[in-house]
């Protein structure tokens, strides 16, 4: 980590280019929150690299005044893997969407997660294809009517959190585009994690899927519909903090506090417990946000680089001449 010398501001991370997302797009909020966070991380600007795939969200790198690579559809995790393993000192972020990460790029996402490459994945989930103008995505709900599903979608959706947990993800979290404080906290936590960190960000698409997350963002109802996961704390929610979640016979159930149920009966969130994280990921209402799971385990970039060091210290730095002369040789005079 770099020392205090770096003093940057949000402005340092803005590019002179006009941002070209639709008015009201949730991407603006995510961009602004990240631009606010980065100066705070104490890392020189030139060490940040944003890598994206294709889609609305993937335009992101163009608007960050850092190194950036807008790649091809679904492949950002592969490109980021090559970059991070060969240049481990860089601070690499992967920006992707539900179509990019879960449809065309599903294979690369799961393999990045299992390998635990030390980069941060931000998955903007708007449950729709925006850039191609409104087809259903792999997170769209069954029955959704779109241009390519006029009678309703018949594709069962992915649960991104379950997928990340099942792929061996070592940091799995969820947040919401306009919840600035929470989103920044999640981004900061993900950045602090060594290994692949995965944040699903619920993001509103005002053009093709407006209001998809209203239930979770509307001030009037959101506290009844969202439960915040905090390590070591009981799962309490509701405007009056009068509801909770408890574990009965291996299943989660929503309970009203009082009426014989106390906080002591509620499930205490344990972000080191993958099995519990799976249960929470399946909870439909209230919707959990926060860190579902986190564990420390070796990263691919560390292990690959260590093998190079080990090889050199064991065998000595390779010499081309010796290599070319290895095996049987003979002299012709």
């Amino acid at each position: 980590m770099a020392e205090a010398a770096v003093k940057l501001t949000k402005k340092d991370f803005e590019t002179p280019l006009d941002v070209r997302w639709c008015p009201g797009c949730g991407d603006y909020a995510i961009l602004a929150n990240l631009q606010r966070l980065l100066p705070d991380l104490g890392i020189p600007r030139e060490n940040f690299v944003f890598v994206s795939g294709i889609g609305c969200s993937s335009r992101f790198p163009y608007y960050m005044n850092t190194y950036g690579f807008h790649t091809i559809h679904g492949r950002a995790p592969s490109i980021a893997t090559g970059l991070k393993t060969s240049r481990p000192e860089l601070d690499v972020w992967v920006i992707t969407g539900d179509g990019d990460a879960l449809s065309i790029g599903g294979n690369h996402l799961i393999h990045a997660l299992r390998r635990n490459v030390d980069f941060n994945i931000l998955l903007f989930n708007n449950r729709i294809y925006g850039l191609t103008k409104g087809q259903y995505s792999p997170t769209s709900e069954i029955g959704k009517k779109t241009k390519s599903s006029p009678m309703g979608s018949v594709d069962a959706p992915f649960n991104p959190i379950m997928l990340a947990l099942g792929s061996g993800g070592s940091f799995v979290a969820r947040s919401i585009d306009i919840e600035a404080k929470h989103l920044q906290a999640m981004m900061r936590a993900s950045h602090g994690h060594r290994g692949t960190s995965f944040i699903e960000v619920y993001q509103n698409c005002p053009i093709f899927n407006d209001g998809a997350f209203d239930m979770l963002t509307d001030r009037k109802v959101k506290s009844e519909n969202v439960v915040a996961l905090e390590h070591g704390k009981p799962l309490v929610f509701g405007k009056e903090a009068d509801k909770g979640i408890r574990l009965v016979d291996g299943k989660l159930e929503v309970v009203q506090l009082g009426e014989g149920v106390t906080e002591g009966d509620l499930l205490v969130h344990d972000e080191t417990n993958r099995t519990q994280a799976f249960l929470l990921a399946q909870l439909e209402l209230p919707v959990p946000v926060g860190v579902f799971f986190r564990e420390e385990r070796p990263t691919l970039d560390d292990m690959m680089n260590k093998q190079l060091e080990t090889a050199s210290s064991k065998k000595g730095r390779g010499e081309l001449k010796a290599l070319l002369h290895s095996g049987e040789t003979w002299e012709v005079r």
Partner: protein
Amino acid sequence: MSTQEKVIEQLESVVIRFAGDSGDGMQLTGQQFTQESVLAGNDIGTLPDFPAEIRAPTGTLAGVSGFQLQFASHDIYTPGDAPDVLVAMNPAALKINLGDVRPNGIIIANTDAYTDKNCQKAGFGGNPLTDGTLSSYRLYTVDMNKMTQAALADTGLGPRDIDRTKNMFALGLVSWMFQRPIGVTIKQLEKKFAAKPEILDANIRVLKAGYHYGETAEIFTSAYEVKPAAIEPGTYRSITGNAATAYGFIAASELSGLRLFLGSYPITPASDVLHELSKHKNFDVMTFQAEDEIAAVGAAIGAAFGGNLAITTSSGPGVALKMEAISLAIMTELPLVIADIQRGGPSTGLPTKTEQADLLQVIYGRHGESPVPVIAAQTPADCFWAALEACRIAVKYMTPVFLLTDGYLANGAEPWKIPDVESLEAFDVKFRKEVDGFLPYLRDEDTLARPWVKPGTPGLEHRIGGLEKEDGSGNVSYSPTNHEHMVRTRAAKVKGIQRDIAPIEVYGDPEGDLVVVGWGSTYGAIRTAVDAARNEGKKVSHVHIRWMNPLPADLGDVLRRFKKVLVPEMNLGQLRMLLRAEYLIPAEGLNKVTGRPFTKSEILRGIENHL
């Protein structure tokens, strides 16, 4: 002891083929015989030929594995046409290979494997060793199983282990026939079986038993000697194309000071390059086995962006999957080398057989106007030079470059005069660090290359991507005139590589009745055939193209000096089409797509038909 003096006959060259079940160890036998031959000072050429299945059912035609080599007292360019000697470990091996053996050639058969059942399985009506099938050959029948068992009778080894050593009997016998030194094989066995002394002892015993059997048995009346070839002085080793490719990449890394990063996904016949590079981590070589072909090239592109020497290796089907990403490397103008070790296609095709049918795929098989330079290696050892050259051009011009080899080069071996490392020219790689006047797409005036910047360089933060770039600034641009300018600029950049391509060397006279134009692994067969035709007084020359894109600047002029142009290829005429289109000349094709390389006689016949 022998009751009669054995005669030693002198020969100039011998073609020998070992054939047996894929479990019989024929590849190892062939490789060891090759080692013995190079130590005897001969020039050699090899052709391994094995089934795609790891272990097909024993005794079946599908399971036959073969290894052919030619060794000679003069310069040779191929593993030879018709075998002079066939070692047929079972009836299936005989059935598959008999048609290739030259008339009156020698056949050595392991009698014990020629049971009624095995003969039937191979599709023989009776026993070919006794029913006259082989009357026009010199047949030597040897009870290899029984003699192997006898040699190991007192070792206490199980029948399976004993059976596995019979290839050493064959090797010992043939080593005696051709007066090869078996010391190198013993040394190799000592390495291979260091942890299993009893197996080591058994193999050496059986090897020697085979050797002594040749010396003492009454059936072999003569041994043969092939004198050392008069080759250029120097230190030599034997090398396969895949090993040479890997060494070429490592050399490029050492000469450029760039870390080598390989992103690869296993595929026949390219995997050995991945295996070889994975062994050399002490050269700071980073190898990444990706989840698929696309991720393999993607990781390489990420590493290129990070300032590394980025490589990806594959074969035809894998290259098809990588193409979209290669277009990204074209658009972002990043250096990247893609090695396509070609095999028979389309689809899964013939994974273990050779073909040259990816030429048009690598030159044209992408969306949009997407020019990529393409270099093709000509011999196994030349893979080293071609790989090195591909890397040099990639970083000089900031472009992806294709390296084409094929299954024949990949697995074939030849003696290689090891180059003097000090004489290899270092690459001039400059990373942009200067902030003043920096633009991501500001081009070098000569090469049109854009600057290479390592992320982490202060003040040069910039974004690249697949959207069309404004020349200079590198900003996203949808301007019609800019797009046309960029399409033409990318094409001009690749065309400009002609400056780095040496003028064509015509083998033979600079003009005449016929020029045979080849590329890639047909080099040896064409050169041998052209030599033969010229010895008969025919006015034939040979041109072998190394850079397939851009084609050498003087190629059209060179070809027009001949009355006819003949293009032998292991495809249906891909280079021929390019030559016709580029130079409007009536080039004619000589095409073969059997999964096997051309023989000299096939090309000689082609030459005669076109004169």
